[in-house]
């Protein structure tokens, strides 16, 4: 190699000694796998659509590109400072821009001015008008965000720990609330291909309340010593954003005999809707599908917990990704979503969605109630209305669509389902049931609350029949108290996350 460097652009130079050599000063080279088009079994070609994020400062450009003068644009930009905003071109293409304000996918992904109060929006507008510093505006935004219950359902109480004498440690990136299932928040799965406007983990995406695992090591250590666990749920963010090489490090060790008790690998994802190319044309799509197949062929059940909010999300590319996951990866796809005003608050939408899911081999699994977080006032519907929607939808579908449980509140004590409304001993009541409980003995326990047509969450319900408390309340407080004591004790021992 010559010591002379020549700019390849300067072709007039007479010294032509190995002009490219300067670029080869590297220890090694890598070759990125390239995305490729996907051909369906029927011979249709699906071209790769590279994932490109669109963020808050792109909102204006999106409207401009559609030739729309949006009256709420300034407010949307402010809302997008409080709640994280990210979409991509695939979603933009799914929206009916002729009637965008009513479009469920627009409501699902774009910030709406009603997600904040008029006062909150005006406060930020005033700061901007007064040319307030970036720090002042950020402080205001942070204050608004704090008022939105950014850490619902006592999730920090789900964090397990490894309590060894020499090295006690909290495991920030795992949650173990129910006996049989452990949730993992891998550091490479802390984002999504787009953010839902109603996201209950929004605080993660604005850099607060980070609970995540650096890698797989503590997960494996924890699972090894917890033989009661049968299911691992990879969640986030969206674990579909994680590359196949990281997935392999998490999953392949689970094939060794010491993890025989782990029967099911679940992946909680919205990528089937937000970026279905992830499972078809992305450079590592084949690797990921192959990995799931290997897990399945080795005796593990692979369950995709697909988040679908509306049937409009299930376009042809999504349906092909679903087919591939089912047929090639051997995965089962179960579907779930919260029931949300402006997006899917109608029996018709749920019935049509469940029908389409069953038709395409998926299993409707959960209808959730909007959590008490974020822009809940904009999205929430009363429990009574949610029950109407659920029961109305069930009437419209065959028995195979009746597998969706709900409407269910995923709250601190557990998953509580509204089973029905009845009049018992002259009192109008909600019949409630634990589908899962922080204490496993609560599971399937039925209890009653006074009927309240406005109540939208468990903390707005009163026990029926003159009871002062629900049966679980005292024990739940005791469980939390004991957890707190244990954490304090471990902190004294020097435990860190």
């Amino acid at each position, binding site marked *: 190699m010559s010591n002379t460097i020549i700019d390849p652009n300067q072709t007039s130079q007479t010294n032509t000694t190995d002009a490219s050599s300067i*670029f080869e000063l590297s*220890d090694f080279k890598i070759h990125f796998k390239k995305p490729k088009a996907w051909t369906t079994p029927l011979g249709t070609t699906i071209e790769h659509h590279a994932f490109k994020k669109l963020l808050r400062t792109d909102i204006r450009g999106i409207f401009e590109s559609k030739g729309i003068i949006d009256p709420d644009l300034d407010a949307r930009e402010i809302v997008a400072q409080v709640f994280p905003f990210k979409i991509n071109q695939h979603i933009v293409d799914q929206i009916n821009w002729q009637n965008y304000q009513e479009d469920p996918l627009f409501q699902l992904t774009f910030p709406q001015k009603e997600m904040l109060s008029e006062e909150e929006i005006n406060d930020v507008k005033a700061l901007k008008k007064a040319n307030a510093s970036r720090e002042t505006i950020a402080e205001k935004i942070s204050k608004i965000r704090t008022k939105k219950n950014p850490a619902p359902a006592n999730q920090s109480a789900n964090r397990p720990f490894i309590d060894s004498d020499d090295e006690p440690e909290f495991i920030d990136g795992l949650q173990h609330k129910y006996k049989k299932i452990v949730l993992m928040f891998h550091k490479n799965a802390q984002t999504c291909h787009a953010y839902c406007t109603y996201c209950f983990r929004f605080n993660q995406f604005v850099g607060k309340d980070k609970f995540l695992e650096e890698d797989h090591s503590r997960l494996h250590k924890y699972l090894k010593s917890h033989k009661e666990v049968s299911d691992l749920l990879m969640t986030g963010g969206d674990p579909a954003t994680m590359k196949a090489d990281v997935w392999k490090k998490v999953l392949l060790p689970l094939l060794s005999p010491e993890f025989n008790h782990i029967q099911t690998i679940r992946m909680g994802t919205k990528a089937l809707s937000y970026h279905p190319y992830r499972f078809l044309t992305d450079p590592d799509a084949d690797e990921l599908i192959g990995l799931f197949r290997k897990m399945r062929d080795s005796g593990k059940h692979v369950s995709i917990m697909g988040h679908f909010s509306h049937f409009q999300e299930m376009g042809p590319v999504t349906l092909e990704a679903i087919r591939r996951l089912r047929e090639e990866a051997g995965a089962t796809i179960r579907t779930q979503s919260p029931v949300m005003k402006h997006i899917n608050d109608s029996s018709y939408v749920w019935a049509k969605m469940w029908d389409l899911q069953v038709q395409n081999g998926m299993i409707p699994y959960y209808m959730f109630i909007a959590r008490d977080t974020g822009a809940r006032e904009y999205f929430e519907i009363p429990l009574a209305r949610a029950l109407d929607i659920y029961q109305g939808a069930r009437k419209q579908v065959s028995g195979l669509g009746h597998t969706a449980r709900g409407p269910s509140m995923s709250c601190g004590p557990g998953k509580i389902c509204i089973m029905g409304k009845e009049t018992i001993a002259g009192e109008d009541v909600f019949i409630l049931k634990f589908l899962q409980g922080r204490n496993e003995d609560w599971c399937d326990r039925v209890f009653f609350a006074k009927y309240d047509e406005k109540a939208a969450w468990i903390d707005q319900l009163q026990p029926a029949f003159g009871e002062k408390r629900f049966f679980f309340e005292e024990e739940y407080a005791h469980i939390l108290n004991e957890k707190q004591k244990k954490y304090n004790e471990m902190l004294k021992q020097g435990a860190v996350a």
Partner: protein
Amino acid sequence: MICKLNDYSESQIEDESLAKFLNDLPQDVRAKYATYLDSQEQLKNALSLYFNSPNQYQSITPLIVFNELSYEIVTLLLNNNELPDEVGEEGSILAFIRAAGYTDQFMCSDCYGQLSCSSCAVEVLQGTLENPFPRDEEFDMLDIDESKPPTEKTRLGCQAKVGTTPLLLKIRAPEKIIISKV
């Protein structure tokens, strides 16, 4: 080209222009890097030629990245006409680092360049980026890592684009351990 600084004794950078460019590195780092360059004749000569007449090599951008935690320096001589399109923004520091084969071990990117974390934060010690001012969303992300409070020089490697001036960067070690809240 990666230099594991602990493998080298200390000497002095001979080339004045290069020495001036590296001035913001800690003295020990600079001195060990000098010995490393002495062992890499091709690289040393290339850098020397570039820094003595940068206008002659406008399609080349030297990128020198010091990782404070691993105590390593990666030196790349980039062709700024060929922009790698991943990871992160096209032609970003992270994209070039990945294209040269350096993984999370050297420059971390938890979110694969999606502007959803700050794990790829760098300090721009010398040089001007193609996009010298962060977009709002990048700015919002800069202060989310409590263990590494940002400075005026902090940028995200996935968003900061390599331009035509040489860049000297530092990947900082965490300043403090954060104990999670219960």
